[in-house]
């Protein structure tokens, strides 16, 4: 499996040595912590720093794509106690870029967080790392020790008078803890359940204090942006979609893995980088932004470029950049059943529509897949998703609804075939052949 293959390596520059290049000295050798030193030495005004980030048009890499500089500027100046929190919960199925960022280059995230702390006036930060990657969490702890020993963390960093400390916190694997307010609740030791907003974290965040919370990739990009300048970073991508983006390509490609490409790279190019379709099969569909993004059929995605605006125009979301590629051996009903089950399991149970609706969706898709579908089931699914969407505290209900609606919208005939004939349109033998668990032709 190729982990690294980029056009313009930026965030992934340090990945080339694999597990041998993550430590502080390697990072410093690559020019790491230079931006922090520069900012501290020049006592760069906070507003200038935020302006530079705004200029880069960096948008949140966690999935929602909110402009990072704007988010930072929401932090109240006067508040005495503020926090910076990094979201490495990365629970979206198909996403594994943050894992590798912390594995191969944890210090870029650390430096990004320290700079963010400086920009928003926070003295403490937390990185919330999901529990399934415990070894990565341990590596991050080690990296923190290195940074602390080198004087990049703690009181009076590099004699600048600025103090900031950073802590790692690992979760236990709940998808909902990737929702930023659910994550804050979890850090506080409570059950991970999203909070009603407003108030937003910038006013009422961790322990009720103003908090800036960003994705790992967002923080990791900060040192690079400041190194090359906001304008230059923006120009790597396209207007309103600045910089490069990491895509976690999975599914039926020859070389699944993380690929860093400039925003606006054609999907076809990304697919080519990932080695093209496995076994030379035909592309059927792609989920372009993690499991909660609406699926796009082959003909639509092949015309898209990989950036927020293009994917949104096509009716989906760039999301976290998890590109799930499905070939012609996939039964879309079965694929949807799997997704519906995930959201049924991961709903936090707080809001009625999501708690009750996610189970309802799963059960109906399950019965269609198992030959017990009814003629009006597709109408029922559309009605239930309609009743769920936009009626809950967080976006999990929408995340559960989008796949259902998009699968039905783009592959309605396949669902209808399933209901009518009580079996898959795609021959089970073909499905098995396409599965990674069986050798091709063994069925």
């Amino acid at each position, binding site marked *: 499996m190729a982990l690294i293959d980029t056009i313009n390596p930026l965030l992934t520059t340090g990945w080339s040595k694999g597990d041998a290049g993550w430590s502080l000295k390697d990072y410093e050798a690559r020019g790491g912590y230079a931006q922090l030193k520069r900012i501290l030495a020049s006592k760069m005004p906070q507003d200038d720093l935020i302006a530079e980030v705004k200029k880069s048009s960096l948008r949140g890499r966690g999935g929602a794509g909110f402009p990072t500089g704007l988010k930072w500027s929401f932090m109240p100046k006067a508040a005495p106690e503020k926090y910076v929190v990094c979201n490495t919960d990365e629970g979206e199925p198909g996403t594994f870029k943050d894992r590798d960022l912390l594995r191969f280059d944890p210090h870029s995230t650390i430096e990004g967080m320290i700079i963010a702390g400086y920009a928003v006036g926070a003295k403490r930060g937390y990185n919330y790392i999901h529990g399934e990657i415990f070894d990565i969490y341990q590596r991050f702890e080690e990296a923190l020790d290195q940074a602390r020993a080198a004087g990049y963390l703690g009181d009076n960093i590099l004699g600048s008078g600025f103090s900031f400390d950073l802590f790692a916190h690992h979760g236990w694997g709940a998808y909902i803890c990737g929702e930023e307010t659910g994550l804050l609740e979890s850090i506080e030791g409570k059950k991970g359940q999203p909070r009603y907003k*407003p108030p937003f974290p910038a006013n009422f965040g961790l322990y009720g204090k103003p908090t800036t919370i960003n994705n790992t990739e967002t923080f990791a990009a900060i040192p690079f942006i400041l190194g090359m300048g906001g304008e230059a970073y923006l120009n790597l991508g396209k207007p309103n979609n600045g910089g490069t983006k990491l895509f976690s390509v999975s599914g039926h490609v020859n070389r699944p893995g993380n690929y860093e490409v400039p925003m606006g790279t054609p999907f076809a190019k990304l697919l080519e980088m990932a080695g093209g379709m496995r076994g030379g099969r035909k592309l059927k569909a792609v989920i372009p932004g993690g499991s909660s993004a609406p699926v796009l059929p082959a003909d639509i995605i092949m015309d898209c470029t990989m950036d927020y605006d293009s994917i949104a125009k096509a009716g989906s979301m760039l999301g976290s950049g998890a590109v799930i590629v499905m070939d012609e051996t996939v039964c879309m009903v079965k694929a949807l059943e799997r997704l519906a089950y995930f959201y*049924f399991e*991961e709903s936090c149970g707080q*809001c009625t529509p999501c708690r*009750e609706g996610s*189970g309802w969706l799963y059960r109906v898709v399950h019965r269609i897949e198992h030959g017990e579908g009814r003629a009006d089931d597709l109408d029922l699914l559309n009605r239930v998703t309609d*009743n769920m969407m*936009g*009626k809950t505290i967080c976006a999990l209900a929408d995340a559960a609804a989008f796949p259902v609606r998009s699968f039905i919208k783009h592959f309605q005939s396949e669902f209808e075939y399933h209901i009518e004939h009580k079996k898959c349109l795609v021959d089970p033998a073909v499905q098995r052949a396409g599965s990674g668990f069986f050798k091709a032709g063994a069925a």
Partner: protein
Amino acid sequence: MVEIEIDGKTLQVADGSTIIEAAHQLGVYIPHFCYHKKLSIAANCRMCLVQVEKAPKPMPACATPVTNGMKVFTHSELAVKAQKAVMEFLLINHPLDCPICDQGGECQLQDLAVGYGESASKYEEEKRVVPDKNLGPLVSTDMTRCINCTRCIRFTAEIAGFMELGQAFRGEHAEVMPFIGKTVDTELSGNLIDLCPVGALTSKPFRFSARTWELSRRKSVSPHDGLGSNLIVQTKHDRVIRVLPLENEDINECWLTDKERFSYQGLNSAERLTRPMVKQGGAWKEVDWNVALDYASHALRDVAKTHGGGAIGGLLSPHSTLEELYLAQKLLRGLGSENIDCRLRQSDFSADGKRKGTPWLGMKIADVSRLDRVLLVGSFLRKDQPLLAQRLRQSAKRGAQISVLHSADDDLLIKLTARAIASPSQLPAVLAQIVKAVCALKGVTADPALAGLTVSAEAQAIAQSLASGGTSGILLGNFAQQHAQAATLHSLGRQLASALGGGFGFLGEAANSVGGYVAKAVPTGAGLNAAAMIQSPRQAYVVLGAEPELDCADGAKALESLSKAAAVVVLTPFKSQTMLDYAAVLLPVSPFSETSGTFVNTEGRVQSFYAAAKPLGETRPAWKVLRVLGNLLGVTGFDFNSSEEVRTEALGGQPEFVSGLDNAIDSGALNLTASATGFERVADVPIHFADPLVRRAPALQQARDSAAPAARMNASMLAKLGLVEGGSVRVGGAAAVTLAAQLDTALPDGVVRVAAAHSATVALGAMAGVVSVEKA
């Protein structure tokens, strides 16, 4: 103020209001489940979704703050579609077992399903089943009905003060449950039943006994603690089978303590006395009323004639109505006795004659919530006045500083700013230190008697908190009022309050602790107080509504004196073996539910009520019994035709608040010398043993708060005596009792805590004082 429009009607609402509050102001109902005005906003049920102009999605009315010019549509197509969608989701996994659900007929889900539900569901899958939980003897669970609104969870965390319930698991598997193996033990647990919008949490004692529409209901007033919580008493076939809170923001808000809610079971106790009884030749006989009244009046007249009126003593329960207390004292005074008292658990009466008026809370109950600095002196507040504890809990959350001076550091579930824990004999000295420190901080001249005191760090911390600004209140609890130097604590408390320029008051122990003074049910002149008439045995006693062995400061001595008396006339709703031993006549009188009457609560508020049920058997309202006794004994001024006439005479009119409330006292010289060698007893009155009614409520008696008394000591005291927890310990007072030793880290050195008001500890005698403690 901002101006908004709801369903086309414009109105002005306060900044920061939510849409649901604004709608309420306008009288527009927005359906909801998780929202409750006294709890934090959860916004999880999603039933209150409404349309807001310019918002792309429906918004939860409970959580959306109003903004100027906002236009809200609660019944638009979008809003109703959202509300109906949520209702469908709520019902798909609900068992719809209304025919066998206790909540049927008073169920928010049932009611709203009529308006927003469909007649049939498209959900044809298997429904969720959730295992029931054991929350203790009071709250029954049917968790399959739960809609996860989390009101119960928020109640325990926010109102009761400790998160005894939580939601475990995720999504459809989410379950509300207590900690594993634990029950819900808050003294406010019954409110969960009211809060639950479905039939998941219902009343265990009431379970399956009636439908709401079969019940008659009457407003009433709680006969227990000094707050006088407002009640709705519900009856079926003239039996009280349920008590609910009647909302009164000035007193109990929308809450009730478990004691107030479930004590009604005692009304139906097998120990109810239903026929008059007299003892003849050592044998008890049930007799007609005229025989019993004749017997009682003769007995009292004989003693009065032979020994003088002073040979009669009247021990009156402070849980009696104002009318009963008034007539009882009038009867006794008519017989020539001044020995009348309703302050049965008090032991220091030296304030009598020095007091300027009736001791009271010193402020309105609602004002307690507005205090910024509070010192609680000698109070088991959470068990003695749970709803005042609740108010202070909320105050502490908004930043009020609460401090405690007490002999036990019980967890009040209130964030305390400072505390001083000392043995009972040391309390006056520590309070004096606080006074001295506050005087110094405020630049006020202190009482010269305090000159020699050294201020401890704890006292200084309390003083600093009190003197740090805002309105202050010094509140003396039941323990301080029962203290052997209660008058000294009273004087010092007053001095402290005046140095601070703040409030000062007493937390009323019983429903008529204030009313007793108003009804003149206290001795005047040379009359004997409750303790004195027990210490100097009388020839005859009139006991009204009390069980002196459990309700007096020295139960053992009380029992001894009653047993020696020639005639004891008891007016009581209950009989007990002890009563049969000492009494000569038992007159069955109505408990609060079967008589009209009045309680004057701790803030001096006059609250009258009617009978909720017919008197049981031949029971009669005590005011009628006393009136007839007065006539039989030829006492003048006993021509009352109604309890209202009695009340008017007692109060001199029909005021909302009684007059003559005044906590001022001529203190004289302060006595701060403390002498106690050996173990001092700290006696609390356990919440479910405080009065004859609650002692007979079976479900409450199974609650954790009703555990048998133990000899509680801190670790060093246990070690000193070579005791281990659970081991036997002999505590010796008037007589010795053997109890289990129990570790109580909340106690200071030199103290053993043994609960009063319990048959197991009666023999110990006085609640306050020194006892011997040894390994048994």
